């Protein structure tokens, strides 16, 4: 792709999210989301491959629908209450519709089926942008509206954790597994959204760190399925031995970073006398843990039988910068002792 075009598109991505962040008016927020979508579509189709085009088409349809629903809900809100402010949503109907539209936009169950397919069609870099940067703008909006009915958020959250765990169980494609892991994590964020937006933000940030390091590891190994991952020890032995920790951190095992958001969420849920819900959610996390564990097994904890040609794939020395990988890996493993500092950082 022409570098000028690439820079324009990347600026478009940044601009869209920034506009959504800074807007207090629904129309402007919608415009930010649209700029975002329009900027990422050429990035997604830059390789003119049937899978990429198909993924882009699916992404375009869902995002356009979600954005239209969002604007329709805010217009209805204006007609009903005369209010365009994001933080002044009072009528339950538009609020519910906006939550559903944003859930469609980030891919929460039961509006999740586009996410694994779209992610599967993209390159790992674009997939990384899609599962990190593209989540920020919708979450900025979700954090600002006050939901009318707690039931809908809890249903969305619980379904997402369940579907995210269940769906990833029989996948062998890494990008689909990461998509389902994203669904499960977003479910956790939705569960806590109405009780403590601070923890939602913290969960989002830790999730972004962990998923970034996972994507970067896969990108370094040029791995898109489990079988390729199984020979990564021939290329990057030290990283291969660290990756199980990153994966188990995504799964939320103490003493890794991934346990921090889960701990805080469960604590907040029990404070709201929702211990049954907390237990259920904690147990659905085990479903996700199973496929992370399988990835760790395939990658580092067993040596799969390979023939000599299988273990020496053609490769060039990587030109990828190691700093982001090192930073995100360190933070996604070792952040748990800093939990109080992290909480203090995000408390408004």
């Amino acid at each position, binding site marked *: 792709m022409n570098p000028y075009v690439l820079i324009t598109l990347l600026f478009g991505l940044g601009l869209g999210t920034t506009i959504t962040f800074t807007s207090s008016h629904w129309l402007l927020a919608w415009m930010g989301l649209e700029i975002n979508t329009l900027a990422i579509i050429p990035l997604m189709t830059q390789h003119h491959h*049937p899978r990429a085009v198909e993924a882009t088409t699916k992404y375009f349809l869902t995002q356009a629908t979600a954005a239209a629903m969002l604007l329709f809900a805010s217009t209805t809100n204006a007609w009903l209450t005369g209010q365009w402010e994001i933080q002044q949503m009072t009528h339950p109907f538009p609020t519910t519709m906006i939550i559903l539209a944003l859930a469609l936009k980030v891919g929460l169950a039961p509006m999740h089926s586009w996410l694994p397919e779209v992610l599967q069609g993209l390159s790992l870099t674009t997939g990384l942008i899609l599962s990190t940067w593209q989540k920020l703008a919708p979450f900025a909006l979700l954090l600002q509206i006050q939901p009318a009915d707690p039931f809908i958020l809890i249903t969305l959250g619980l379904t997402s954790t369940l579907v995210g765990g269940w769906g990833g169980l029989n996948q062998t494609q890494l990008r689909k597994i990461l998509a389902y892991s994203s669904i499960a994590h977003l479910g956790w964020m939705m569960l806590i959204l109405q009780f403590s937006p601070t923890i939602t933000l913290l969960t989002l940030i830790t999730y972004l760190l962990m998923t970034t390091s996972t994507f970067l590891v896969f990108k370094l190994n040029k791995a898109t399925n489990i079988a390729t991952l199984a020979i990564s020890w021939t290329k990057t032995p030290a990283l291969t031995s660290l990756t199980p920790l990153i994966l188990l951190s995504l799964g939320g095992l103490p003493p890794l970073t991934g346990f921090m958001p889960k701990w805080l969420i469960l604590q907040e849920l029990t404070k709201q006398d929702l211990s049954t819900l907390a237990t259920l959610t904690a147990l659905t996390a085990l479903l996700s843990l199973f496929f992370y564990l399988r990835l760790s097994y395939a990658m580092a904890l067993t040596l799969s039988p390979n023939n000599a040609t299988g273990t020496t794939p053609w490769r060039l020395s990587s030109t990828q910068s190691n700093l982001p990988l090192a930073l995100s890996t360190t933070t996604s493993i070792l952040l748990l002792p800093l939990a109080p500092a992290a909480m203090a950082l995000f408390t408004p």
Partner: protein
Amino acid sequence: MTPSHFAFTSAFMLGLTGLALHRYHLLSALLCLEGMMLSLFIALSLWTLQLDSTCFSASPMLLLAFSACEASAGLALLVATARTHGTDHLQSLNLLQC
């Protein structure tokens, strides 16, 4: 609910229903999206008219501009799909399913 409110709401809902349930051609999906956008355009224009002030009058134009961009992106994707898949049937977009 005023009649005009009802009119654009039902227009939007019809478009949404068509997008959700009638999944044969990609072109019809894009048309439904465009219909949804136009109903939103009507909604915003009516809102501006009701308000009797100019401070919000640019909004329908903005919406129209964005929806035009979106429609053109959609049509570009339609062309790309036709070239890679040989058809614009939504059913044929099945390479990525598992």
